[in-house]
């Protein structure tokens, strides 16, 4: 099996696959118009473009509207508990380095309850890709503020005067935590997002793709995002953390494209067997 980066390529090279070849027959539970639909298209497009074999992809998620996504693809999937997609994906990749591992989920799943795993996954730099489907709200539980919600959003009964808390910018957090590749996209531009996912999967180490994905039910105003996003003007993304910190210090949060492309080697423990199990006995001779 050929392994390059986080990429388990197809061995048989049949006709090129299309996005539809990676869709399952399960109907999404998502509201009509939800940004996650387009993001699903971006993921399946990326899988087709990557040319991976279905059976060599593990797609892991937590809980939330967004986290339902693995069931809508036809690769191997694991739909775990809320907030724990990253450790689960880490376990998959460390145990099976030959698989292409992608994790996905919401801003609540990944940055609120799952926030610790996010910073540690960035640091640990295991060769896998994480997609945060950010709608700045908890969709699944009917509209509460998330860590990316702006301080003055007063749409939830739990925070009727706004949260009063500054949102966190996921790309900045990923950078100082140590992610090796950081990109931002907008689900309204699924082709561009697909390209970012392809680049992320191909990049060695932990790659983070932050996708703005509107919730049309609880954050109708997010339809306006299409006017706010703008592509990065940089010729090439920075490759050093200090450099990227300088750039992100001045970023408005709506820049799309690759924001950082580091060169740390992926964390990949040596896996060569050197000893038979029985040989441990000698240690215990009285």
């Amino acid at each position, binding site marked *: 099996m050929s392994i390059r980066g986080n990429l388990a390529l197809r061995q048989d090279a049949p006709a090129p696959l299309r996005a539809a070849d990676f869709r399952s027959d399960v109907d999404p539970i998502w509201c009509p118009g939800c940004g996650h639909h387009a993001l699903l298209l971006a993921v399946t497009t990326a899988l087709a473009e990557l040319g991976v074999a279905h059976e060599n992809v593990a797609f892991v998620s937590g809980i939330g509207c967004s986290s339902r996504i693995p*069931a809508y693809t036809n690769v191997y999937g694991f*739909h775990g508990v809320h907030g724990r997609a990253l450790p*689960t994906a*880490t376990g998959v990749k460390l145990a099976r380095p030959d698989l292409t591992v992608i994790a996905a989920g919401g801003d609540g799943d990944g940055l609120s309850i799952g926030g610790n795993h996010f910073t540690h996954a960035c640091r640990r730099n295991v060769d896998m890709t994480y997609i945060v489907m950010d709608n700045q709200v908890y969709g699944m539980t009917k509209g509460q503020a998330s860590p990316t919600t702006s301080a003055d959003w007063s749409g939830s009964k739990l925070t009727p005067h706004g949260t009063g808390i500054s949102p966190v910018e996921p790309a900045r957090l990923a950078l100082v935590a140590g992610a090796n590749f950081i990109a931002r996209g907008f689900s309204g531009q699924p082709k561009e997002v697909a390209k970012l996912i392809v680049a992320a999967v191909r990049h060695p180490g932990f790659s983070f793709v932050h996708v703005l994905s509107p919730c049309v039910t609880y954050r109708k105003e997010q339809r306006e995002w299409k006017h706010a996003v703008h592509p990065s003007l940089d010729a090439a993304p920075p490759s050093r953390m200090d450099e990227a910190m300088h750039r992100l210090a001045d970023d408005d949060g709506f820049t799309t494209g690759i924001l950082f492309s580091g060169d740390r080697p992926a964390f990949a423990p040596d896996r060569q*067997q050197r000893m038979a199990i029985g040989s441990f006995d000698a240690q215990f001779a009285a």
Partner: protein
Amino acid sequence: MHSLVDTATLERPAAAPASRSVSLVFTGSGGAGAMTAGQILLDAAAKAGFYGLMSRSMGPQIRGGEAAAMLRLSNRPVAALGDGFDLLVAFDWGSVARFAAELPLGPKSLVLVDDEQGETPAFVVASGAEVLCLAFERTAEAIPDGRVNMVGVGAAARLIGLDPDGLVAAIETKLGRKGAATIAAAKAAIEAGERLVAEHPPVARLGRGEGSADGRWNISGNEATGLGAIRGGIGFVAAYPITPSTEILEWMAPALERTGGVLVQAEDELASINMIIGASFSGVPSMTATSGPGLSLMSESLGLAVASETPVVVVDVMRGGPSTGIPTKSEQSDLAIALDGLHGDAPHLVLAPNSIDDCLATTQWAVHLAEKLQTPAIVLSDQSLGQSRVVTDRPPDRPYRAERLVAAADTANYRRYAVTESGVSPMAIPGTPGLAHVADGLEHSERGTPSAAAADHQRQLDKRQGKLDRCDYGADWADVEGDGAVAIVTWGSVTGPAREAAARLRARGEEVRLISLRLLAPARPVEMAAALSGVERLLVVEQSHSKQFLKYLRANYDLPTATKSFARPGPLPVRPVEIEARLSDWSMQ
């Protein structure tokens, strides 16, 4: 005297020429080397052909606090500490009084102490033990590089009549790498120690054991757990350090490196459990080790392993609870959470080793069962098993290996959660063509698609419970020993003293049955009914405050009317004599 044990019954014979069993303890402040002293004496006894056991007790200080190495040496296999100590070697008094309750002494005990330590602690005085003040410190100082703990080892070896050859061999093995000078200094100190007590009548006369060290093992419970895991087939471990389980990881990290496996230190226990779930989903048998606080944090995701039918093994080396509790001391009080600590109806396996060396077999069996039944297995060890060492016969090889029922590539109409006769559904391992599916913690149809339908829920609940209930666990579910109308039922580390109590009664001609459960969940009502058949009086023995084991038994089994509980929380170990007393006098509470 704080001891709960009636020390009048201590075994030490007055001028016992034929004694072949002895209990002794080294205590001292951190720097004194009490642990090393104990270790060397245990090694020496092993080399001289004895069985033995060493438990440790530590104060809260990270470094420099008081420590006790508690040993029992015998020409028979040793399952537990004895009722009290024949010999206490105190390098200093320090805060030894904190251990008072853990150091039962009696009028027949002998206490050695450095002669510059001043006043003897009240509990020693109250015990009536003979106290011998010796020039430990000055003797050590007189020897170049001489260490006081070696002087103590020499004195102790002499007083228990241990053959000196083993001691020399133990020193050479232990200190071999440190060079000839160190070995020479140690030998000189030992000899000086022997001379210090040359005039005193011995407390025992071990001499040479009948057996030989060949083929025997010297292993701690935590090491045995690690070895059992690897023998069972564990290839991936993720864990977060916590006392008293960390030695499992310390042993497994290099071991896994050699077998081609991986151990990762996770950021917390939530990560550990989910990492091993991910690794196991991807096809590699996986495990974590923790203690009570960590097990608590794993509750939610253990339920995920149940619902998604992903095998994992979680070893809980129990310590005093609740909350942070008493991190360095033993207790059996995580039984309830291990059995019932998952939300929803979440059937899973709970197993418990019942001796130090059984940590090996039980962990190995847990790996086998978890994989076979595609469900989490919790293994309940405890500090007194995990951090004690035993010299024992080489544990037999067991046939237990990870053998997962795996689906063949391109199986038509593959359903991950298909209802089968056994309740176990073939699992598709990522990488297998044609079987891609989503494993899910949401309730699901047989295919794995989320479903809120009552019929799907009932079907999957039946299947998940049924596969556990219908499995044939064979004879290992419990150790059932002896016969008769009086029985002790127990589990885990308390089995050692219970076994010894039963043996003592049998030696007196009384019939006593011992039932020690190794498989706690699922409950085995048929097997238990058979084990209990004919029992009229049942003594339930456990080391918990709220009688967790008794409640578990009542909930799941029909018990004789004359059922009595002997439950005491940690950290004091349950002593054989305490069980013996309750069996001899049924009216005793």
